[in-house]
């Protein structure tokens, strides 16, 4: 029973830790399936988290925080779009620039406005997204195994967690079953085909980066308003890059993306859990090694264990009408 509880706790934190990855990964999916590589997921998430922390603190409203995060992230997405769609700039350079802007600006503004070393002030619980008790969770709590599973693992997360996982089937549905999705996938593979079919490549790709911005904003909001209580300097800590790795690992498919993010989340959870616990046979493992584990596994997985991941064919290439 004890170990069952341990496993449940581990899985519970897996879910919490994979949510920002999942939002960011799906964000990248919209953008990259449309042919716009986005290495700026990290920056958008970070700026979103800062906006969420600031707006939620100033207004005391969780919802306003979330909207601010989405707004700021979408604006940064549009900057990326302006550089890489309208001006056909290099998408990697533009994305990296966004990451730097976000990393610097959040700290400077945070310090200037709140003088707490780049943090935003702690948010009261009313300005955060509290946990949601699903119906029956309380009643089922004492039912062994199933009840535990339900009340510990499924129930008791913030609304953003449920939203993140609902986004997975929703994204699949959008891509496979809607006109927008069909065109989005087409523009990432062969924009000339979209253009000759009489559809605007530019507007379509802009819509894709807007979708990407919204989801990155949600990821930022989750970090500052659900997982944490306010913005902390560099709080994304490379999650945007892990999300990109997960996206490749998932071969740009939503359901795969969910499993990839859960895997990375699990590794993260495991690393936290194992800190200070000696391993059988090996003994105590340094904290740094455990912290590095998810990243090392990312490299190993990407290097050889996923087979050939074929990116959208037109990814990273600005569209220019051929003569």
């Amino acid at each position, binding site marked *: 029973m004890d170990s069952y509880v341990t496993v449940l706790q581990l899985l519970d934190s897996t879910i919490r830790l994979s949510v920002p990855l999942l939002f960011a990964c799906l964000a990248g999916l919209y953008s990259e399936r449309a042919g716009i590589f986005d290495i700026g997921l990290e920056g958008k998430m970070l700026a979103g988290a800062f906006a969420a922390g600031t707006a939620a603190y100033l207004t005391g409203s969780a919802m306003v925080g979330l909207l601010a995060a989405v707004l700021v992230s979408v604006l940064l997405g549009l900057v990326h779009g302006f550089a890489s769609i309208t001006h056909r700039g290099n998408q990697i350079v533009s994305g990296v620039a966004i990451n730097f802007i976000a990393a610097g600006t959040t700290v400077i503004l945070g310090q200037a406005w709140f003088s707490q070393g780049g943090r935003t002030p702690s948010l009261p619980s009313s300005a955060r997204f509290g946990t949601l008790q699903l119906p029956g969770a309380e009643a089922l709590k004492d039912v062994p195994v199933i009840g535990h599973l339900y009340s510990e693992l499924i129930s008791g997360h913030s609304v953003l967690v449920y939203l993140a996982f609902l986004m997975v089937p929703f994204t699949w549905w959008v891509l*496979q*079953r*809607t*006109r*927008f*999705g*069909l*065109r989005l*996938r*087409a523009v990432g*593979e*062969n924009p*000339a*085909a*979209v*253009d*000759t*079919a*009489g*559809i605007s490549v530019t507007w379509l790709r802009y819509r894709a980066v807007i979708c990407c911005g919204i989801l990155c904003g949600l990821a930022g909001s989750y970090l500052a308003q659900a997982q944490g209580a306010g913005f902390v300097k560099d709080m994304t800590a490379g999650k945007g890059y892990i999300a990109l790795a997960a996206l490749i690992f998932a071969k740009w498919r939503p359901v795969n993306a969910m499993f990839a993010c859960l895997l990375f989340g699990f590794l993260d959870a495991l690393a936290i859990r194992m800190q200070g616990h000696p391993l059988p046979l090996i003994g105590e493992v340094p904290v740094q090694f455990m912290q590095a584990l998810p990243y090392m596994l990312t490299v190993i997985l990407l290097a050889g264990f996923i087979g050939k991941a074929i990116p959208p*064919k037109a990814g990273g290439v600005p569209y220019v*009408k*051929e*003569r």
Partner: protein
Amino acid sequence: MAETAIELVGIDKRFGLVHANRDIHLRIDRGTIHGIIGENGAGKSTLMSILYGFYQADRGEILVNGKKVSIADPNAAIAAGIGMVHQHFMLVENFTVLENIMLGVEGAPLLSRGIAKVRAELKRLEEDYELDVDPDALIEDLPIGLQQRVEILKALYRGADILILDEPTGVLTPPEADHLFRILKQLKEQGKTIVLITHKLREIKAVTDNVSVMRQGEIVATLKTADASVEELAELMVGRHVLLRVNKGEAKPGDVELAVEHLSVRDNRNCLAVDNVSFNVRAGEIVGIAGVAGNGQSELIEAITGIRRAVSGKVTLDGQPVDVTGKANPAELRRRGLAHVPEDRHHMGLVLAFEESENSILGYQDDKHYLKGPFLDIEAIRTDAQKKIGQYDIRPADTRLKTANFSGGNQQKIVLAREIERDPSVLIVAQPTRGVDVGAIEFIHRRIIEMRDAGKAVLLVSVELDEIRSLSDRILVMFAGRIVGECGPEAGEGEIGLLMAGVEKKAAAE
């Protein structure tokens, strides 16, 4: 008097300094197949792109069915009943046929309704025009001919009455091209108007009712196809008299320069592509290898030139063995006097992003006279390139222009100049005139004959039977990896055709 489907009045278009279309006036009758012929870069594709709304004309008017229309984008063209089959297919390769056809005309924000409609409509088109294709197949799994059919279906599904095909046979095998022509004739009978853009004279004669000839952005003539001879059209296209037949004297074969014995080669899928092939090429003769593409010709050449390792067999160059099953490599063979004009110049012959001068030494960049110490001697390379440009009439005569900006014929001349000017003892030429315009074809053929007359051994591989027959002194026919027959240049098209189809000589005679 037939009704007019399309009328172009004074269309004019410039791209920077290039005057792509000059004051074009053109009338296309309803229910006809109208050919537009011209060399690469004559402005055919630009004109059609204007008609399809991909570009806007600087001046001029377009009338469809007698009514003036403004075609600002492909949507407007589709609305006016104009459909286009592009030279490079506008298909999403990992989409199904169905998804490709409905892209842009989905009907509603949700796909489900549109899908049912496309299926029904496809079935109808299939019955009306015998254009059958599996709607659920992925494009990347379909052969090129079927992919083209999807493009045609795309246009028809959008309600096109006027169908423009831009160089539709460039990527097709001869039987696929014949099939396409049957489809086009059928479409014509159903009242559709078809505009066929091509630079191949044969196609014009085979399928069109009327033909317009373009040269340097202008329409120089519009004729009834029946009234025009091939020679006349060629002359109009190029602007001077063109020899379509190759004049050549007797071959004076000398010693065996290249001998191939029991050569076997595997392809990328590890299947036996070349199966125990033996032949030789003497100095002063052209040996042609005929065959439908994909019967082992590519692998054969790759093995002889050291690009691909052979499984077994022997190759002798100039009396010395070539280690084709082991260490032979292209650089070594080049040094030993084997020059190779590869079948796909974009893939193997040139680096399109390089300057002309860089491509003109590619593969020979280690030569002393291109080097200054450890560095390339840019001056010497450019001077050398300039000389070749003059000798081969490569246009534009700019050594610093990116190779991608040359036309197909001029690109091929760059490769040819590079290989021939090294004075090799054996020249292997594959598909020398693929995607090359008439004027350049004549030039290239003459050069190949000159090589023979200079006492070189020439091995020619081509899927164009005409080319094989007019150039070769001996013809070998390849089928399924084996040489199934040998004949002289006087052999009839029918005889070689049967061999190419794998019918053995004896059986054919019976």
